[in-house]
C-alpha cells in the first residue's frame, strides 16, 4: 500500500517539475524561438489571455520569492538600496530590481528574457503600480498595458466595475497584445481555455478543502504555496494543469483514505496536534526552518489567506467560458487582497469555523502594506468572533534581515503552549461531571 502511495506522489511531483522546467526552458530560448514574453503579476493575472496569444508569462513576485528561497535576495535587495531604494519599501520590488541589475537570472539559473510587454494587472496592491513604473523605466520602449482593477470597497463586484475592466481589456490590453504577438485575438480559443481553468479550479478547491478532514491530508499554507499553488498561476487554462491537479487530487484522496497527515520536507507528519488558520504571506528566505517550527510541534495549517491571492475559488468563482472577458474581470476583482477588510475578516472567520481550527495566526510581513495594514484589527475581530487563541509573529518575505528565527520560535512555542492548555480545558469541560 505504501508503495502505491509513493508512486502517486512521485507522479504528481514529477509532472510539476517537468512543467516548470519546460516553462523556464521556453523562456530562456524565447528570443530565438520568437515567443513573446509578458511580465505580469500573480494577483489578477490574465494567464488564459496571455496563453491564448501563445505568449509566455513571467511573474516578478515568483522570481523574487525564488530568489529568497535560493538565498540570493539579500544581495539583490542591497543592490537596489544602493541605487536609492529605501530600506522601508516592499522587498519584492527591491529583490526584482536587484535581480535585473545582476543580469536577470531566473529561478533555474537560466537568464530570463527581457519583456516584450509589461502587463500591469493592478490588483489588490498599490505597490504593483510603483513596481511597473520602475520596470517601465528599466525597459524603455517596451509597451505597457495597464489594467486597473477596482477595489471591492463595498464588499461586492458591480456591473459598472465589470464594464470598466472589460473596456480596458478591449481598448487597451488586447490591442497591445495583438500588436506584440502579431496574432489576432481568438475569443473561441480563450473560451476553450476557460473550460480547462474551471476544471482546474474545481480540483484546486477540492484539494484545499480536503483540509477539513481530521487529520488534514495537506498543509494548506506551506505545502499550499510550495507545491499546490505554484502551477496554478502560470498554467491555468491548459490541459496540463488539469492533468496535474487530477493527479494531485488522487494523491490527496488516497491520503484521506489511509488517514494520513500532510507530507513535510522530513516525511509524513505523524500526529496532528493543532489545526491553524494563517493570515499573511510566508517568509521565503528561511522557508524550511519556518515550516519546521510548525511541523515539529504537530501544527498543521488547514486554511490560509495567502493561497487566495491568486483567486478565492472556494467562494465559488470559476472562469466562465461563456463570458470570458467578464469572468477575467470578476476574477481580478475577487482576489483576496482586493477584498475589503470586513470581507477578509468574514472569510477568515469562515475558515476558522469550517476547518475546525484550534487557533488563528498572523504572519505579518514588514514589506507588505496590502496585507499588513489593518491586520491587528483583523486579529481582534477574529478573537472576538471565534473565541480561539490568536497569535502574531513578524517577518519579511525575502529580506533575511527581518527573519529572527529565535524570536519567531519563542513566540510560536508560547502560542502552542496556549493552544495546548486550551485543549486540556476544553477536553475537561466536555467530560461529563462525576
Amino acid at each position, binding site marked *: 500500500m505504501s508503495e502505491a502511495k509513493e508512486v502517486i506522489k512521485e507522479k504528481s511531483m514529477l509532472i510539476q517539475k517537468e512543467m516548470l522546467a519546460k516553462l523556464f526552458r521556453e523562456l530562456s530560448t524565447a528570443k530565438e524561438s520568437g515567443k513573446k514574453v509578458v511580465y505580469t503579476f500573480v494577483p489578477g493575472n490574465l494567464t488564459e489571455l496571455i496563453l491564448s496569444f501563445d505568449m509566455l508569462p513571467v511573474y516578478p513576485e515568483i522570481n523574487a520569492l525564488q530568489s529568497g528561497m535560493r538565498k540570493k535576495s539579500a544581495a539583490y535587495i542591497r543592490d537596489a538600496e544602493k541605487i536609492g*531604494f529605501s530600506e522601508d519599501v516592499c522587498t519584492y520590488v527591491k529583490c526584482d530590481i536587484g535581480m535585473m541589475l545582476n543580469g536577470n537570472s531566473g529561478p533555474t539559473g537560466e537568464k530570463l528574457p527581457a519583456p516584450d510587454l509589461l502587463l500591469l494587472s493592478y490588483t489588490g496592491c498599490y505597490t504593483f503600480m510603483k513596481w511597473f513604473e520602475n520596470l517601465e523605466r528599466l525597459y524603455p520602449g517596451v509597451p505597457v498595458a495597464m489594467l486597473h482593477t477596482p477595489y471591492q470597497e463595498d464588499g461586492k463586484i458591480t456591473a459598472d466595475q465589470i464594464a*470598466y475592466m472589460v*473596456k480596458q481589456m478591449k481598448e487597451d490590453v488586447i490591442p497591445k497584445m495583438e500588436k506584440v504577438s502579431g496574432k489576432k485575438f481568438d475569443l473561441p480559443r480563450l473560451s476553450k481555455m476557460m473550460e480547462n481553468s474551471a476544471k482546474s479550479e474545481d480540483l484546486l478547491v477540492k484539494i484545499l478543502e480536503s483540509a477539513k478532514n481530521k487529520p488534514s491530508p495537506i498543509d494548506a499554507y506551506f505545502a499550499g504555496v510550495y507545491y499546490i499553488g505554484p502551477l496554478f498561476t502560470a498554467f491555468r487554462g491548459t490541459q496540463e494543469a488539469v492533468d496535474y491537479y487530477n493527479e494531485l487530487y488522487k494523491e490527496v484522496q488516497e491520503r484521506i483514505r489511509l488517514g494520513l497527515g500532510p507530507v513535510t520536507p522530513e516525511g509524513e507528519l505523524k500526529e496532528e496536534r493543532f489545526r491553524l488558520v494563517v493570515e499573511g504571506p510566508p517568509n521565503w528566505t528561511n522557508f524550511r526552518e519556518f515550516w519546521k517550527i510548525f511541523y515539529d510541534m504537530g501544527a498543521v495549517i488547514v486554511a490560509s489567506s495567502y493561497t487566495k491571492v491568486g483567486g478565492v475559488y472556494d467562494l465559488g468563482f470559476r472562469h466562465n467560458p461563456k463570458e470570458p472577458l467578464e469572468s477575467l474581470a470578476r476574477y481580478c476583482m475577487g482576489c483576496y487582497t482586493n477584498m475589503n477588510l*470586513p470581507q477578509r475578516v468574514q472569510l477568515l472567520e469562515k475558515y476558522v469555523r469550517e476547518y475546525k481550527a484550534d487557533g488563528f495566526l498572523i504572519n505579518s510581513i514588514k514589506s507588505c502594506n496590502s496585507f499588513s495594514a489593518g491586520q491587528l484589527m483583523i486579529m481582534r475581530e477574529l478573537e472576538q468572533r471565534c473565541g480561539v487563541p490568536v497569535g502574531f509573529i513578524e517577518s519579511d518575505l525575502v529580506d533575511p534581515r527581518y527573519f529572527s528565527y529565535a524570536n519567531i520560535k519563542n513566540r510560536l512555542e508560547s502560542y502552542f503552549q496556549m493552544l495546548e492548555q486550551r485543549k486540556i480545558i476544553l477536553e475537561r469541560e466536555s467530560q461529563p461531571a462525576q
Partner: protein
Amino acid sequence: MNSLEKLIEECSKQAFDLNFTHAKKWKSGDKTRALVGYLPIYFPREIAHAMNALSVGIMGAGDRKQIIRGDAYYQSYICHLPRGVIEMALDGSLDEFDGFVFPAICDCVRNLSGMYKLAGKGKFQRYFDYPQNFDAAIGGVFYRQELEKIIDDISAVNGMKLSIENLNHSIKLFNKNRELIEKIYDIRQEYPWRLSALETYYIVRAGMVITVEEHNKILEDVISCLSADRGEPMDNIRVVISGSFCEQPPAGLIKSIEMAGCYIVDDDFLLGSRWIQGSVAGNSNNPLGELVSAYLNKSTFSSAVYDVGNPKGKRLVELAKKRKADGVIFSAASFCDPALLDRPEMQKECDAAGIPHINFQYHENTGQFKVIKEQAGTFSDSIKLWA
C-alpha cells in the same frame, strides 16, 4: 482687514485644531448641513460643497496629539498617519462627522477605510477609487461613477440633491480658492521672505477645515498684505520639496529647513488643495463632467497616479525650473511606499537635469530636527559654494 500676523495666527489655530471645532460649529448652524472627513490626497470638495456639506481634511494627528490607542492598531513598520486617524476615531474627535472619504492613494489608506467600516465610524466610509485609465470613455466613466457614489452617500445623510446650478457655483468658488493659493505661491516665488513656508502652510492648511468662502476671504486678505514688503531678503537657496503629500511633516521640520538657509518655493505638503492645475469650467450644463475632465486632464503629478506617458520625474524637474529652484529636497514619511518607491527615478531625472538634491525621511511626530537641519544647511552651503 486683519493684519497679516493676525491672519497667520488664526490660520495656525484652525489648521491644527484636531477637534475640528470650527467645522462642527458650522454644522450645528443648520440641520441639512453635513460634515465629510477626507484623507489625503485629493477629493473634489466641490461636490460636497454643492450639497451643503463641508469637507474636512483629516491630515493625521501630527505631533499635536498623544497616540494612546492608535499604536495598538499598527505594526512598527507602518507609517504614522493612520495611527492618528484611528486615534481620532476612537477618542470621539470625529463623532459629529457624517461620513468619511478615503482616496485611493495607497494600501494603508485603503485598509483604513475597512477599519472604519469595521468600527462603524460615520454613516458612510467610502473608499474613493481614482481611475488609472485616463481615457474619458473608460476612466472618465469610472471616475464619474465613483463621484456619484459619494453624492448618493451625502444625499442619504442630509437629503440634498446635487443641482447643476449649485455645482457650478461651488466649482467657481474652488477655482477661486486654487487661483488665490497659486497667487501666494507666485508672490513667494519672487519675494520668498515676505511669507515663510511655514506661514504659507498654516494658511493653506486652514482651508481644509473651514468653508471655502471663509478661506477665500483669508487668502484675499493675505494677498493684499503681501503687496507690502515684509522681512528681509536673505542669502538663501531656493528649494522644492517633494514626497510629503500625505503624512504631513511636523511644523518644526518645515521651519528647520527654512532656518537652515532654504527658501521653500514649492512643495507638495497639502497637494489636494492644489491638485487641479488651472480652472474647472464653471458654467457648464454638465458640471460633474467638468470635474471628471479636470481630474483626467489637469491633475498635478503625484505618486498616487499612474504616470507612464507623463513621468513625474520630468514634471518635478519642470516645476523646479519654473520656480527657479536651486535644488530639490526629497522629504517623505518613513514607510511610505508610494513616495519612497518614486524617489530613485525622480532623483535620476534631477541628476539628468543637473538639479542637486538631498533626501530624508520623517514621522509626523518627529521631535528632533537637528540632523535634518544640518543636512539642509550643508546642502544650502554646498549650492552657494558652487553657484
